[in-house]
C-alpha cells in the first residue's frame, strides 16, 4: 500500500497549511477598507470648507457645518423619512419589475436564435438611451403618476439586466458544456444545472448596472416630471430659484449619494462572495 500512502501524503502536501481566519483580523480588515474612504470624505469636506471661507458666492454657499446641522434637524422631522420611504418603495417596485422583465427577455433572447437576431442589437441600443428622454412618452401613455416613473425605470434597467444574462449564457465555457452533455444534461436541466449557474457572475454585473439605471431614472422622474402623488426624495430637490436653499438641496444630494453607495456596497459584497465561492478571488488581494 505504498502507493496509497504516497497519494495521501501528496494530497496533504499540495493542499498546504490550513488558513485560519481569526475574528481578530476582521476589525483590522474593516479598518483597512474604511480609512481610504473616510480620508476621501474628509478631503471633500475640507475643500468645501476652504471654498466657503474664501467667500466665493457667499450669498448662497453655506459651509459644511451649516448643512450638517440642517440635515440633522431635517432628519428629526418625519418629512425626510417619509420621502425616503416613498422613493425606496418606488425604487424597489420598479427594480423588481425590471428584474423580471429583463430576466425573461434575456433568457428568451439567449435561447432562441431568431429572437436574438431581431432583438440583440435593439437591447444594446436601448441601453444608450438617456432615461429622461422616455418621460414625454411615459406621460402620454400613463399620465403623471407612479406608473410613468416605473415604466421609465424598466426601460432603463431591463436592457442592462437582459444583456448581463445574455453575456453570461454566451460565455459559459465550452468545456463545461461538453462535460454537461456527456453527463446527460439536456434542455431545461442543462440550463438549470449548468448554463444559469455559470452565467451568475455576468448576471450580477447586469443587475448592478440595471440598478444604477433604475435609480437615475427614478431621480429624474421625481425631480423633473412633477409627478402627482406623495413627494419622494427627488421632489425635495425641486427648489425655487428666487429663494435659494443651498443647505436643503445639498442635504438631499448627500442622502441620495449615501443610498447609492450603500446599495453599491451590497452588490459588491454579493459579487465578492460569488467570486470567492468559485475561486476567482486572489487570496493575497483579500487580506
Amino acid at each position, binding site marked *: 500500500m505504498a*502507493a496509497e500512502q504516497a497519494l495521501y501524503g*501528496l*494530497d496533504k502536501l*499540495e493542499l498546504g497549511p490550513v488558513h485560519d481566519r481569526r475574528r481578530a483580523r476582521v476589525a483590522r480588515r474593516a479598518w483597512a477598507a474604511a480609512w481610504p474612504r473616510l480620508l476621501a470624505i474628509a478631503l471633500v469636506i475640507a475643500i468645501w470648507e476652504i471654498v466657503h471661507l474664501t467667500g466665493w458666492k457667499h450669498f448662497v454657499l453655506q459651509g459644511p457645518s451649516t448643512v450638517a446641522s440642517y440635515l440633522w434637524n431635517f432628519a428629526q422631522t418625519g418629512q425626510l423619512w417619509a420621502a425616503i420611504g416613498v422613493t425606496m418603495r418606488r425604487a424597489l417596485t420598479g427594480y423588481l419589475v425590471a428584474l423580471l422583465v429583463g430576466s425573461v427577455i434575456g433568457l428568451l433572447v439567449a435561447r432562441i436564435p431568431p429572437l436574438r437576431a431581431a432583438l440583440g442589437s435593439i437591447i444594446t441600443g436601448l441601453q444608450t438611451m438617456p432615461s429622461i428622454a422616455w418621460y414625454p412618452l411615459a406621460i402620454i401613455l400613463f399620465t403623471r403618476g407612479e406608473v410613468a416613473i416605473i415604466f421609465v425605470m424598466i426601460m432603463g434597467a431591463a436592457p442592462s439586466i437582459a444583456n448581463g444574462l445574455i453575456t453570461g449564457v454566451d460565455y459559459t465555457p465550452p468545456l463545461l458544456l461538453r*462535460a454537461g452533455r456527456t453527463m446527460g444534461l439536456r434542455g431545461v436541466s442543462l440550463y438549470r444545472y449548468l448554463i444559469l449557474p455559470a452565467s451568475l457572475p455576468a448576471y450580477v454585473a447586469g443587475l448592478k448596472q440595471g440598478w444604477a439605471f433604475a435609480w437615475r431614472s427614478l431621480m429624474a422622474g421625481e425631480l423633473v416630471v412633477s409627478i402627482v402623488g406623495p413627494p419622494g426624495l427627488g421632489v425635495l430637490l425641486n427648489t425655487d430659484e428666487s429663494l435659494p436653499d443651498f443647505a436643503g438641496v445639498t442635504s438631499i444630494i448627500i442622502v441620495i449619494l449615501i443610498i447609492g453607495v450603500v446599495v453599491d456596497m451590497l452588490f459588491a459584497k454579493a459579487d465578492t462572495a460569488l467570486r470567492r465561492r468559485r475561486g476567482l478571488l486572489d487570496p493575497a488581494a483579500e487580506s
Partner: protein
Amino acid sequence: MSLRASELTPSASQAGASASPAVRLTDVSKAYRAGRGELLAVDRVSLTVGDGEFVCIIGASGCGKSTLLNLVAGLDQPTSGEVDTAGRRVGLMFQEPALFPWLDAGRNIELALRARGVQRAVRRAQVDELLETVRLTGFADKRPHELSGGMRQRVALARALAQDADVLLMDEPFGALDAMTRDLLHDEIERICADRTLTVLFVTHNVREAARLGDRVMVLSSRPGRVIEEYAVPRLGPRRIDSPEVAGLAATLTDRLREEVGRHGS
C-alpha cells in the same frame, strides 16, 4: 534495455476482438469544413475494443485523437463509417477536470447521478462510495479551487464513474499533472478499472504513459489520423513506468512516431 520481441511485434490480429466488443469503429472518417476546402481529421479508422480492455491511442499533433473520442462519445457524428458502442454508457474525461466551480466536490459527483435519474435517497451514499474509490473521503465539501490538480482530476474521474459508464473515454487526463502525481494516478486508474471491469479508450501524447497503461497501444498517423501500427502489450504482472519492458516499448513507440512526424517535415 531488454526488449522482448513478443511485446514489440505489431499485432496483426486484434487482441480484443475475441470477446464481445464494447466499442467497434468501422471505417470511420470525419471531415471538417475548413475555409473553402475540407479538412480530413480522421481517415477510415477501424478499431475494436473488447470488454474490459484498456486501449491507448497515441499520436503526434493533428492525429485527430480528440475527434475520435468525440465520435465514440456521440458528441459528434462521423462523416462516413459506423460507430457502435452496443448501447453501453460512455463517460468522458478531459485534460482539464471541467468540474463546475460553483459546486463542491460531492455535489459535482452528485449532479452526474442526478442527471441519470438516481433517486435522492441513494445519491448521498453513492457519492461517498465514489469519493472513497478515488481516495478522497472527507473532501466532499471542498470546492474545486480548494483542491490540487491531481485531486480535481480524481473528482472528475469519480464524476465519470458516477455516469455508470461501462466505457471510459479519457482525453489526455493526466497531461497537465506533474510526473509524481501522474505516476500515482496510473496505479489508481489501473486498480479502479480492474475492480469495475471498465473498458477504457485512453488518448495520450505520452509514450511512456501509453506503454505503462495499455493492453494495446494504437499509433495514429497525423493529418489525417489513421491507424498505422498496433502493439499488444501482454500483462505479465504489475508494471511500473520505469520498468525495462515499459521503457522498451516507449522507445519503439517514440521511433515510430518520429518517423511519422518526419514524413510531414520533408
